[in-house]
């Protein structure tokens, strides 16, 4: 029984189905439980969050990763699966502390002041959640002080800043300066991304990392996590 439901969770992660209303890659799956319903059901049956994560969600994402490597899957597939895992992680979150399982880390995400473009930031947030991180998404057009306040309140390990426009990327520097002036700069790693910015720019403003796309963002976060 446990194996069956974990296998279903894995399969639905591969299919990228969050709820029973999602079609995934096969239309006939509509109406069958998705990852969120299956996660709830697994918890109700007493399956440990650890098993759900390791034997269901992670195994599913491993398959998705392989399919992406072999070009059977593309970014939309990866995002759909990551979104399903992220939703499952939100359901599991209250149970993780009880089980003694720690999140891989907490990340505050924001599109900087003056910039309303949030597609990239949203994609990175989905992928990070899917990779097992706790993401607090502040939204877009976020003032440096609001980011400072959130860091003080949430105590994240990372801050992710996004900007599409060359006219708003300067506020990444402002945000890093605000963190420094508040005495919080050495408490968090700041990574940046977005169409306007580059590795060189990241270094010039004193960011800790730069992700050219969502997948690189995760690699950067993972690398900074072990430092």
């Amino acid at each position, binding site marked *: 029984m446990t194996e069956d439901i974990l296998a279903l969770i894995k399969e639905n992660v591969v299919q*990228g189905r969050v709820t029973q209303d999602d079609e995934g890659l096969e239309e006939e799956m509509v109406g069958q439980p998705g990852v969120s319903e299956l996660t709830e059901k697994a918890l109700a049956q007493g399956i440990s969050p650890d098993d759900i994560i390791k034997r269901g969600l992670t195994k599913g994402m491993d398959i998705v990763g392989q399919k992406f490597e072999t070009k059977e899957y593309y970014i939309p*597939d990866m*995002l*759909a699966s990551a979104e399903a895992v992220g939703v499952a992680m939100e359901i599991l979150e209250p149970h993780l502390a009880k089980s003694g399982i720690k999140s891989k880390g907490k990340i505050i995400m924001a599109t900087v002041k003056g910039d309303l473009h949030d597609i990239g930031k949203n*994609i990175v947030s989905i992928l990070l959640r899917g990779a097992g991180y706790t993401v607090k998404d502040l939204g877009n057009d976020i003032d440096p002080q609001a980011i400072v306040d959130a860091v003080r309140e949430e105590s994240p390990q990372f801050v992710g800043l996004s900007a599409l426009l060359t006219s708003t990327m300067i506020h990444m520097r402002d945000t890093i300066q605000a963190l420094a002036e508040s005495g919080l700069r050495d408490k968090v790693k700041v990574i940046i991304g977005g169409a306007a910015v580059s590795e060189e720019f990241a270094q010039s403003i004193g960011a800790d990392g730069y992700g050219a796309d969502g997948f690189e963002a995760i690699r950067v976060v993972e690398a900074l996590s072990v430092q």
Partner: protein
Amino acid sequence: MARQGVVVEPYQRLKLEQVEQIHRASLAILTDPGVVCFNRNAAESFGDHGAEVISIDQGAAACWLLKIPEKIITDAVQSAPKVVKLGARDENNCLILDGREPRVRFASGSEANNWLDVDVETFVSKRDPGIEVDFPVFRVEKGTVDRLARAARLCECLDSWDSFLRTLNIQDDDITDDNKDVNKFFASLNNTTKHVMSGLTELSQLSNVVRMSEIIAGGEDKLRENPIISFITCMVKSPLQLINDTTQKAIEIAKRGIPLVISSAPQGGSTAPIREEGIVAQINAEILAGIALTQLVNKGTPVLYGSVPGRAGMVDLYDSYGVPEFNQYNIDCVQVARYYGLPCYSTGGVSDVRVPGIQASVERLFSHILVTLAGPQYIHYAFGLLERTNTFCPVQAVLDDTHIGMVKRFVRQPTVTANRISESLEQIRRVMGTSHKLYVRFVRSALHSGEIAPPYPFEGKDMVDETLLRARDRMEKILSLPPPHIAKEVVDKVFQEVPGLLTRLRN
């Protein structure tokens, strides 16, 4: 099941009134000045059916001036089939060409002398010897039977390549005029299960080629039901001359009822007027004269309206395929053929430059898009041709296949229905209920079902254009696959009954 091609909403460059003006101009041309005919049988045939035939003195060669009345043309247009089947070894690869339906298929063409190989060499930066870049270099080889067979194998595996029109002039030392036809047809048929089309070098070889095709198709009746081969005859020498040799070939092919392209290739500015209305009226008169002859010889002969109008290059008077007028002439001809309801063999995808690259891509994409939009039933020259039509490059053919695939997606008819609109509304409502407001998950079924275009397969990752190198890799992968050879016992029978085949072509 036949190959589907792509149905387009035809781009109408000419108004109906203008098409009719062209038609009337062509009829006028056929009576004044008329058509010069160097073939006695054709002249007699036209004369027997009401054309005025005037013997004229053109030096040594016997020749006649034909003044072809409207009725002969009207009758021919009526009796020529509106639907022509081009069969194939694998019947799923056959083409049903309906002159009234703008469904486009893509074929190779020309009989290029040269085969252009793409090699890869590593270059070192003079400024920084630590920088090495792989770059394509080009090598010209002559057309051979082996290379023709390789081109056919590429055709077999490339999705957009619907029909194999011989790509190369085979110039092996053991190929002569007397064995060229059987070997080019056999090398083609033995390496693709798609339709094979070619010109005929020697009329004396027609029976051998037909016999070979009968054996491969499974018998005389089977070949009639499933004509796995067809012929192109360039019986017209522009302006307005039916030449003896190819006209006789067209007569003999028509007698056998094998599908036949009546092709004319005037050059605007040298062998035809350079203005659109002038060249189109002339080429239409030339093609109609050829079609009329096939119908006089054998009513109901399946024919394609073969329009290959070009424009002279102003520097050297070579054909210039990259100029905008080329597309205008061709689109007009497609419209005229549709006016008659005849399947149109049109032209697109050639470039003037000698090697693949930016100029080649721009020039060929112009005609790939524009001529396709006009909705001819069959576009020849669409794969691998460079240096006008003198060179066939297999790597370019691989690129063309991908690009034509993109063009087919672009030109296909819209799919807006009430049901699909409801599905979209449902998606919009669902996405607006999420925090991320992204539609990406709904892309998936469209992506995996092939409804939307896949990523460009030859894109490089670094600051170097790797397109040709990646296309070359794809070509080599295809050529490493086992060829779709004809069954051994059938090949044995072909070799027993058909003279002139090179033993090295046996499986």
